[in-house]
């Protein structure tokens, strides 16, 4: 036997705990309660890290010896570009979870991630073109990364369009989930093909696995900004999910109770 009795017991216990949490978080009501407790923390943390990162990056971090002060837009551009891609991944993961386990919350998470992801992608494109103007001399070039980010934006828009075109909520949830998963299979191919086609963009100088190609005074505030953007994303995502839960569950007992409590508090 590969496992001893104790190890196997531990394994089953672990699986059991994971599933318990999975189901607990998957239930709209308990997610609403847990996220309600977490939300202020996330909000404060996002606000703090973004403020610290912005002030540090824009005012105190050193200039680039070649690009001068113009490179400071990096502190907005890099985090939004990274987040744009991960938000599609997160959205598609939610879609896969919904298709496999039919967890209602995953559907809500998918629907709520799409508009945030699309806006972040727009931000990445806009900051990129502001950076491109002084560096490359034009607002827009048909470069690999710009193009694949643009395609990413269209993928987000496609998910949102399909969502709004279908009236039946159950069907539209599953259809958008299928689309998001198909998109995520396609995303690496799109990135590869576009890169092959045309590349002018400076290569990534910031990744998880390698040592950054810049001094610590630059990458530490950048890292703070990246973390801040993720926190911001999760905060907004949670807020949207909470609102969507309330709307969808507006006929259930607990939502009615919650509303009547709030109303009586206000009065």
């Amino acid at each position: 036997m590969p496992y001893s009795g104790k190890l196997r017991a531990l394994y089953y216990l672990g699986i059991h705990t994971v599933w318990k949490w999975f189901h607990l978080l998957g239930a709209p009501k308990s997610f609403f309660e847990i996220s309600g407790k977490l939300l202020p923390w996330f909000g404060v943390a996002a606000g703090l890290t973004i403020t610290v990162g912005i002030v540090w990056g824009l005012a105190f971090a050193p200039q680039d010896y070649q690009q001068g002060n113009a490179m400071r837009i990096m502190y907005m551009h890099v985090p939004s570009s990274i987040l744009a891609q991960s938000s599609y991944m997160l959205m598609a993961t939610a879609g896969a979870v919904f298709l496999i386990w039919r967890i209602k919350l995953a559907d809500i998470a998918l629907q709520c991630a799409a508009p945030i992801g699309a806006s972040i992608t727009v931000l990445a494109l806009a900051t990129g073109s502001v950076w491109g103007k002084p560096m490359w001399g034009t607002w827009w070039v048909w470069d690999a990364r710009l193009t694949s980010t643009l395609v990413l934006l269209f993928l987000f828009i496609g998910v949102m369009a399909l969502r709004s075109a279908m009236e039946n909520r159950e069907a539209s949830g599953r259809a958008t989930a299928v689309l998001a998963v198909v998109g995520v299979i396609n995303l690496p191919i799109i990135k590869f093909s576009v890169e092959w086609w045309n590349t002018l963009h400076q290569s990534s100088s910031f990744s998880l696995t390698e040592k950054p190609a810049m001094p610590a005074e630059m990458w530490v505030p950048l890292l703070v900004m990246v973390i801040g953007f993720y926190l911001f994303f999760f905060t907004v995502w949670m807020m949207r999910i909470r609102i969507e839960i309330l709307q969808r569950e507006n006929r259930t007992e607990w939502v009615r109770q919650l509303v009547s409590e709030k109303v009586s508090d206000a009065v």
Partner: protein
Amino acid sequence: MLLMTIRRDLLLTFRHPADVLNPVFFFILVVALFPIGISPSAEVLQTIAPGVLWVAALLATLLSMEVMFRSDNDDGSLEQMAVSMQPFILLISGKIITHWIMSGLPLVLLSPVLAVMLALNESAIQGVVISLMLGTPTLSLLGAIGAGLTVGLKKGGVLIALLILPLYVPVLILGTTLIQTAALGGDYTAHMLWLGAILALSAGVAPIATGAGVRISLSH
């Protein structure tokens, strides 16, 4: 089963030839608009020809996509297919193959003529045929996903384009660069291999995703 679906669908389309012919005429028309709109000079045409042919092929495929499930959905036979004992993926694959025979293959056969009209040289014409031959099946496969997800929606047409065009980007890039390489007399084996790889991947994924999409659309 697969062959029977193909036979049935081919027969049905042959009885309504307009559904097939219109996208083909559309393809020719779009290609003809570019020399008129931009410039009839051979130099300009040679540079834009790969992109023009491919973009026109994408649009023509999308245009014919909507009819893939429409009539079967309207008369309820799609529902019967979905609940029948036969493997649904085979039925879907049959429909996709029929779609390619009726919309992709005519484009491939027509493309050398249009390539000549766009002043491409001989090796480039070869490239056009090869790239469309390898690429148009992928267009049908990916397009079917969009068609499946939008079965029964009133405004399906534009929506399919919005959903599927981004997914066509790799095929478009590989197809046009193949023709460009061929025009310069270069070796385009790598492009062919990549187009083939994408075709193999979509042949594996698209029927499943399409089947899931059709089932979702039928469920409401």
